[in-house]
């Protein structure tokens, strides 16, 4: 690995209470991913987006059509990230409305090929399939590269100890984090093109709009 190489890792947490088990899971996933990136010689640059802080701005964005500077900054961080960890509580058989609102206001092309680790929390393990019937299709639609292991943490999972035995939360976190780190290392850093400072010439726009 190139010395001095780095990757940006952005965590999106849709937990509502403070502290929240959703954020707790997000932090464990972030720490594990950072560890695997460092093992691969990559310096992780971590940024956490707490959607709770943007709840009003998200509603306003949906109604007025533009983001506040703080929300825009969070959106830019997600779109320019080299890897994403997204964590939502499961409400009524799916991700929370707040979680969906955030991804609703981001242009779809901001996710193409981006490595994403999906994770969720819930009261009991009976909600765990929401990972695969709700989160995974959302990020498939966004053309993200979702890692194979999704992590669901039920309340009881937090009492299973520190040892990474097969199938425990600690083991699932580590497996998913390793998959995410591997995907991030294997992909060139996200290149952002600013259409305002790097415009596409009109002749090219004309050509690309034909056919």
């Amino acid at each position, binding site marked *: 690995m190139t010395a001095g190489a780095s990757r940006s890792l952005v965590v999106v947490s849709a937990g509502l209470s403070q502290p929240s088990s959703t954020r707790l899971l997000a932090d464990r996933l972030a720490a594990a991913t950072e560890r695997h990136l460092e093992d691969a010689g990559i310096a992780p640059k971590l940024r956490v987006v707490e959607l709770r802080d943007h709840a009003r701005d998200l509603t306003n964005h949906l*109604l*007025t*059509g533009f983001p*506040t*500077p703080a929300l825009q900054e969070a959106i830019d961080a997600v779109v320019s990230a080299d890897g994403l960890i997204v964590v939502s509580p499961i409400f009524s058989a799916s991700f929370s409305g707040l979680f969906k609102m955030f991804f609703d206001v981001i242009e779809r092309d901001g996710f193409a090929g981006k490595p994403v680790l999906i994770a969720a929390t819930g009261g009991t393990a009976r909600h765990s399939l929401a990972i695969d019937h709700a989160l995974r299709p959302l990020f498939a639609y966004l053309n993200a590269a979702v890692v194979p292991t999704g992590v669901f943490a039920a309340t009881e999972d937090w009492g299973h100890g520190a040892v990474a035995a097969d199938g425990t939360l600690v083991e699932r976190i580590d497996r998913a984090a390793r998959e995410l780190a591997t995907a991030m290392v294997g992909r060139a850093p996200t290149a952002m093109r600013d259409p*305002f400072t790097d415009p596409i010439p009109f002749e090219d*726009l004309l050509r690309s709009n034909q056919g």
Partner: protein
Amino acid sequence: MEQTMQFGVFTVGDLTPHPTTGQTVTEAERIQIMVTVALKAEEIGLDVFAAGEHHNPPFVPSSPTTMLGYIAAKTDRIMLSTATTLITTNDPVKIAEDYAMLQHLADGRVDLMMGRGNTGPVYPWFGKDIRNGIALAYENYALLHRLWREDVVDWDGQFRTPLTGFTAVPRPLDGVPPFVWHGSIRSPEIAEQAAYYGDGFFHNNIFWPKDHVQRMVKLYRERWEHYGHGPADRAIVGLGGHVFMRPNSQDAIREFRPFFDHAPVYGGGMSLEDYMDQTPMTIGSPQEVIDRTMGFREFVGDYQRQLFIADHAGLPLKVVLEQMDILGEQVIPVLRKEFAALRPAEVSDGPPLHPRVLAAQAARGGPLTSAAPEDSVTSTETAVPA
């Protein structure tokens, strides 16, 4: 004859209930309100009246050249424009014909602003695919541009029947096509298009934060220079604006708040105070409006046209006309003077005008000379009850 920066009003023609009485004017009344606003604009010495084009309720004006043709016959001096003309779903051949006809009837007092519209289903209603929005804006405008400049056009494109040996009639008045603005809130592709043709660029400057308006105008100016039309600061820029004024700013806010809170275009989420903080909207005293508007030139540079939204959100006609009086008496005279004092000599004051409009201004002794008193409309003799 010296040109001046243009100030004017634009209307979207919405039928919005009054927020406290729940009353909505009829379509007939709404159309008369728009006409009254246009005549008032001429009376108080504004330079431009611009009308929107819509094809769905709660909006009324679907047929801008019919309305502008009527207004042209009732006015002598004011420029008639659009905000916007749907370049995506209208046939460019019909735009070429309609606006050339209007230009003849109005003796050159016509320009227009191209836009893509804001209502998805208008595309399929007019046989188009919204996914081609930008492509339609490009192709249709390329054809319109040729139809006004070439007497006989042979043409093939993706979106319209081909043309062989076609002449759009009438030809533009004296061979001078109407000046064109391209309006877009958020698409850099449209700023690029305006720059490519050396046309004007208009930002409505109402719904988005100023940082965004600034980026759009900066891109347009840089690309205007790139395409060889001249230095970036000479590009032709127009801005919208939304103001509501009373002598005391607290009174303005108290009176306007219910209209803001209930107007569909403002969402119903953000508070009026947050909205004013995050967008260029100004609800306050005339001096606050002057200060805020002068501030626009700090983020877009010296510009050529300032339009304020006039009648909308269910504001009664009486209030709209009062607002226009404040604009005409207390705000715009000051803005004219202050903008002119700050503008470098080499930067054009206003957008290009038809030679006949320039000649008429010269004959009158200035663009600001009021219409004859018998033509005037005042707030007490309006066509519609307020």
